[in-house]
């Protein structure tokens, strides 16, 4: 089998871009270092266009299925490239003011984008693990980058220690699976699992370890302890990146792994995911109620949102009373997870960009320091309020539509009660979002000086605002795209077992 390396040109290009930025760093004058951000951004846009043109509707595999090129990975790749661009552009001002090594900052971000893209493409556990580690190592450095700040150091240390622990769990789980099933490829795991009736205890242990490891990465309760401290201490754009990018990448992997590999064992993992989802939704939103620091608040809110996504994962299949697994309505759930990831992504980008901008000029992150911000920065406050309303799940914003879709998917699979818990959890979240909005709009400002919002930030915020409203009132085009992606990950389950077994034989 000849590998068509042209298929991974975007990954080569992005590696090249990262090295380009790191080497430009040596030559560029210190007062022009933000040009690296523009280079990175231009590069990402170029790679985005290139991938869309060259990989549209391409379905192929590389290295015997270690890397999968399909609509699913393309959707996530595009999302990560766009996200990376936004993160880089929204960091420029912050980096200028607070950080010392812009070259490393932008270079490592580009590397982590590569890692996220690989995670969405991997069709095998070890590849996924390596991609995940590349992402984590990049993030360890980025979280620590504000190195004279004690909080940033604390954040970084916690993140590294717990990240290493979770990687160890994940790796141990993978070795367990490999030891007992003899493979780490998703399609082969799927084949073996569907041939056996009962899951052996060892495999189950491996599965639980993998779920725990990935649970750490997405900060699902009870593996969420690191998240608030890390989010609080990290440079704010990196907090946004952690909250959106690393979660989306982990979910890209989780969704593919659970659908392509573990679907035959759904009756074993579904209860675990249901428990995690319930805990995550309730605990995340409950603890958020008492937060005083905006980054901690958004951290807990993002934990709550992971709960909703876990709810989506739990509704990937329905099992009827005779134990027959039905995937008839799984498209709904997988669309919903991706849609919610994107809606949550752009909404959180807007929220964090507002926080960053306010922090850049006031140096404060306490919720009470936002008092009267509507008078000092009207447009910024409006976008901030819109993003909070969207996170709370009110129309006409993306958060409402995506939550409705997600909860519909869950109830279509017979999990109406869990959707009820989720709806109740979003009622809880309403309170703490309103607390922030109250500071922005109702409280009187302690200091009336207007806040300078750079033109670039205004442009970014307007784009995000349009995105939030667009997804809120007309999501059909996006969902039709996601539908293709869902098709590609759900087809494996209907592929005839014969081809798979042949494939399997040649591999052994």
């Amino acid at each position, binding site marked *: 089998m000849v590998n068509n390396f042209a298929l991974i040109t975007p990954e080569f290009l992005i590696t090249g871009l990262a090295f380009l930025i790191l080497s430009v760093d040596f030559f560029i004058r210190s007062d022009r270092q933000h040009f690296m951000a523009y280079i990175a951004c231009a590069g990402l846009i170029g790679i985005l266009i290139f991938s869309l043109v060259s990989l549209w509707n391409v379905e192929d595999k590389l290295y015997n299925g270690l890397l999968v090129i399909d609509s699913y990975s393309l959707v996530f790749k595009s999302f990560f490239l766009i996200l990376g661009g936004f993160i880089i552009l929204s960091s420029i001002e912050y980096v200028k003011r607070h950080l010392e090594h812009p070259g490393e900052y932008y270079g490592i971000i580009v590397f982590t984008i590569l890692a996220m893209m690989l995670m969405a493409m991997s069709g095998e556990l070890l590849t996924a693990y390596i991609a995940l580690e590349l992402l984590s190592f990049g993030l360890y450095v980025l979280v620590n980058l504000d190195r004279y700040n004690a909080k940033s150091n604390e954040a970084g240390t916690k993140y590294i220690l717990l990240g290493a622990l979770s990687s160890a769990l994940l790796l141990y789980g993978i070795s367990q699976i490999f030891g007992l099933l003899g493979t780490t490829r998703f399609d082969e795991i799927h084949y073996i699992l569907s041939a056996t009736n009962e899951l052996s205890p060892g495999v189950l242990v491996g599965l639980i370890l993998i779920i725990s490891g990935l649970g750490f990465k997405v900060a699902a309760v009870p593996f969420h302890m690191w998240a608030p401290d890390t989010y609080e201490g990290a440079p704010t754009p990196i907090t946004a990146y952690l909250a959106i990018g690393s979660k989306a990448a982990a979910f890209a992997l989780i969704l593919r792994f659970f659908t392509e590999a573990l679907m035959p064992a759904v009756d074993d993992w579904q209860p675990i995911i249901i428990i995690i989802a319930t805990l995550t939704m309730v605990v995340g939103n409950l603890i958020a109620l008492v937060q005083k620091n905006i980054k901690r608040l958004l951290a807990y809110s993002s934990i709550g949102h992971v709960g909703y996504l876990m709810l989506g994962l739990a509704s990937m299949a329905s099992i009827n009373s005779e134990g027959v697994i039905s995937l*008839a*309505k799984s*498209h*709904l759930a997988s*669309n919903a997870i991706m849609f919610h990831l994107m809606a949550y992504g752009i909404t959180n980008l807007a929220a964090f960009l507002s926080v960053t901008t306010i922090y850049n000029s006031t140096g404060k992150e306490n919720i009470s320091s936002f008092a009267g911000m*509507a008078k000092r920065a*009207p447009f910024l406050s409006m976008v901030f*309020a819109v993003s909070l*309303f969207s996170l709370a799940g*009110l*129309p*006409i914003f993306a958060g*409402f539509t995506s939550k*409705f*879709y997600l*909860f*519909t998917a869950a*109830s*279509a699979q*017979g999990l*109406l009660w869990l*959707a*009820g818990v989720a*709806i*109740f959890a*979003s*009622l809880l979240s*309403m*309170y703490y979002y*309103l607390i922030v*909005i*109250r500071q922005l*709009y*109702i409280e009187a400002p302690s200091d009336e000086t207007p806040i300078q919002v750079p033109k670039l930030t205004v442009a970014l915020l307007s784009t995000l605002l349009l995105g939030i409203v667009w997804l809120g009132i*007309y*999501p*059909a085009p996006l*969902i039709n795209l996601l*539908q293709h992606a*869902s098709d590609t990950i759900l087809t494996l389950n209907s592929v005839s077992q014969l081809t798979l077994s042949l494939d399997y034989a040649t591999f052994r």
Partner: protein
Amino acid sequence: METFDNNVLLLLVILPLIGAGILLAIPGDRHRLVRGIATSFAFINMILSVYVFAYYYFNDEGGMQLTSSLSWLSLPGPWPLGDQGISLALGIDGISAPMILLTGIVMFTGVLISWNIYDRNKDFFILYLLLLSGVFGVFVSLDLFFLFFFYELSVLPMYLLIGMWGSSSDFRTFIRTKEYSAMKLMLFLIAGSVLIWIAILALFIEAGVGSFNIIDIQGSSFSPSFQKVVFAFLAVGFGVLAGLWPFHTWSPDGHVSAPTSVSMVHAGVLMKLGAFGIIRVGMFLLPEGADFWMPTLVILGTINVIYGAISALGQSDLKYVIGYSSVSHMGYVIMGIATLHSLGLSGAVLQMFSHGIMTALFFAVVGIIYDRTHTRDISVLGGLAKRMGVTAALFTIAGLTSIGLPGFSGFVAELLVFLGLFETYPLLGVLGIIGAAITAIYILRLLGKVFFGPLDKQWETQTDGSRVEIFSSAILVGFVILVGLLPFPFLKIIDHGVKDTLAIFIGIG
């Protein structure tokens, strides 16, 4: 004309949104331009709502009219009706047509009353238009998703509207900050919508047709036990917004803290959304559940009437009296609906219209007084009629309507409700009439204390309402008297709606 008729309902919903969008682009210091734009959009919407009402009246066919449907999002999956999913299906029947007229009138008069807002009035009108778009949306939606979408949209702006432009109550022993009231209102309403959301999902799944369209879902039959559970969710969820006892406590606080025009819209129109939701979703889709729960609802409605009226008696804040009177009057609506009798239901719908106009008038007048005296303390106000003659006259008209004096709209509506009650629950009908008697006590007490009697010295220099304020109140007065003297056009339309609704109940219970 054909295309216009097909899109007029969509226009009702979209125009306020467009207005809000235009306002976003205008600099905030152009106060007159901002309010001019808001006023023109509200005016166009009022004209359109009158058109819709007249269309339904002259069309004379009953049933769903002006229906249109735009496919919005398909939901993948094997569904018996194909993947129709969610569509923007619009239409009106004999129950929503009067509600649309009501919304149009209150919206326009509310904008006029808000002319004296200068602090960030651009933001105010943007939120106000969003609110109204949501209200229109609920009344015209025939799709559960969009019904819920617009329902939430009408809740969303309330927090800021109350928090930013509202006023706190501060009496010797009684303090309610506007922040508290706004948060309470939001959390109550969102808690209600949690139940509605769950019920909608349950309906969607149980019907299993893969469509959120009410008409599609109506075709499927639900088991009686399912109907009983889900109707309870809907009744409480929508009941919160309708001010159903014991979930009403947000309503007096919220209405009192809100700025005048928002009180008008909220008490006048938004509370009707709750009652409307019970009819449109609960009774349309779950007749057996409705049949099962109606005796409970009629009792709760009676408590609403009596409890609201007694609470109104004890208030020292002028606006709280009106707030509790809303709770009391919404009780009649709930009682009327719960009779499941054509007279009672017609009365309930007419009461929704009549109370909407009347309470808007009340809040407008209270707003006029508060703007000038800067207090709403009944014990401080006195003899205002000598300086504010027109305002006093307006308040008297609203008060007499509230009591149910013949010649005003309240009389016809309450009479029908009582007739319906005597056919079904005569004892509760008597209690309802007692409620009306208590209403007379607190209204006459207010009239006597605040407007008539000796003029307090500190109010010597008070001026009467401005021309704009008087004009907008006069529109409301016009409708109060119009419905009181000529209820038949309204009753004819409502009759269509009531017949269609009660036809679902034939053969049940």
